[in-house]
């Protein structure tokens, strides 16, 4: 069968491409999570300046398409400031900024879903605000947020395909290059989709597993 032949033939390049896709996804999500934690705390703080910064950031990221963000940051900024991007750095940065906005809203929602008596109980025992956040609030918020976090991981993973527009050789770009040579668009894009599909479904299984293990007697 041709599909198996082509899949085997291009397997080595797909391993590389898959690694790049995962690299961009994983690093971006780690940074996005940090952005999310810090900015959600900013957003809930009493300081108007901090809240203002977050509001502008969220409105810019959510108000513009990811494709435009990619083109603006990769082609636009170097033109204005006269520098060259390292491709991988630019890709991780763009995806982090994008996912960071969605993570901010998601984490804020999770933290606010925790009963305020939890913070009071932790503080009354003598824990500082950061200690109470880390030991008491975030673990509970994470449990609530898990489905939306996994959803965001899936969205970011699939969004990395847009990085093909700046020649980042992840799964989609790799396929485009192969198709340009062998003209097997139907088969190659099917194989490409299959790689995404497998990773997404592994993540879904993982989510179900974590949810089962964190029921806390309920």
């Amino acid at each position, binding site marked *: 069968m041709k599909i198996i032949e082509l899949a085997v033939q291009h397997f080595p390049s797909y391993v590389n491409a898959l690694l790049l896709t995962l690299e961009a996804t994983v690093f971006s999500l780690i940074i996005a999570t940090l952005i999310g934690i810090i900015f959600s705390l900013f957003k809930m703080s009493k300081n108007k300046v901090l809240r203002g910064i977050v509001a502008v950031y969220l409105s810019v990221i959510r108000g513009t398409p990811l494709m435009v963000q990619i083109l603006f940051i990769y082609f636009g900024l170097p033109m204005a400031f006269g520098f060259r991007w390292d491709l991988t750095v630019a890709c991780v940065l763009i995806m982090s900024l994008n996912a960071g906005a969605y993570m901010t809203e998601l984490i804020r929602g999770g933290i606010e879903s925790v009963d305020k*008596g939890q913070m*009071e*109980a932790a503080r009354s025992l*003598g824990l500082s605000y950061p*200690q109470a956040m880390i030991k*008491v609030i975030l673990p509970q918020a994470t449990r609530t947020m898990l489905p939306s976090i996994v959803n965001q991981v899936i969205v970011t993973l699939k969004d990395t395909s847009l990085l093909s527009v700046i020649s980042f050789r992840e799964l989609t770009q790799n396929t485009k290059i192969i198709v340009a040579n062998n003209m097997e668009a139907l088969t190659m894009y099917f194989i490409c989709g299959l790689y995404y599909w497998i990773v997404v479904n592994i993540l879904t299984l993982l989510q179900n597993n974590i949810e089962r293990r*964190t029921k806390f*007697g309920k």
Partner: protein
Amino acid sequence: MESKISVRNLKKSFGDLQVLQDISTEITEGEVVVVIGPSGSGKSTFLRCLNRLETITAGKVIVDGFDITDKKTDINEVRQRIGMVFQHFNLFPHMTVKENVTMAPVTLKRADQEDADKKAMKLLERVGLADKADVYPAQLSGGQKQRVAIARALAMDPDIMLFDEPTSALDPEMVGEVLAVMKDLAQRGMTMVVVTHEMGFAREVGDRVLFMDGGYIVEEGTPAQVLGRPKQPRTIDFLSKVL
């Protein structure tokens, strides 16, 4: 007797609403003070000002010699000496009963995990729940949850315990088991401030009763005086409704 808690001209407002008008009182070591009054009288707010869970608008609160209204005071340090028990328990649902009790001493480096575990078992035994050490709060009854909450507060070796309507969220048949633990605590000499509607507890365990209404302490004295021979019309009116 040494003054454990000294409250001087305490005022508290939420926006335009003044909840505590002008509260002054001294609480001595080992004293059990029971605060009663109608809902909205400010009694819970008063209690929550004693460990600064509520910011204090004006006046002074001095606990164990620490002025907690002073911004320079390390409030986290002072709070380690003040245990608090809440109406809705506020146990940590993602931790087992034992973890609930050991979390604060271990996090605040007062004990290593092993010592904290041993102490937790002793405390759980004392509140009659040693067999529940490894279950999660969701599997406990209300009365059991509140007893764990008391053990959790005691794990920090506080010398003051604050109780904010500890039995109000309980089914009637579970009130007794919680009050028994509190009575035991009082007999061991703990300084306690208890906001409650349990007049029987006030009479039996309380050294002093404060009746609050409209943000003021309207009347105070021994349980026999305040509950038995109230002088103020508002106290008489309140007691006629609850007794």
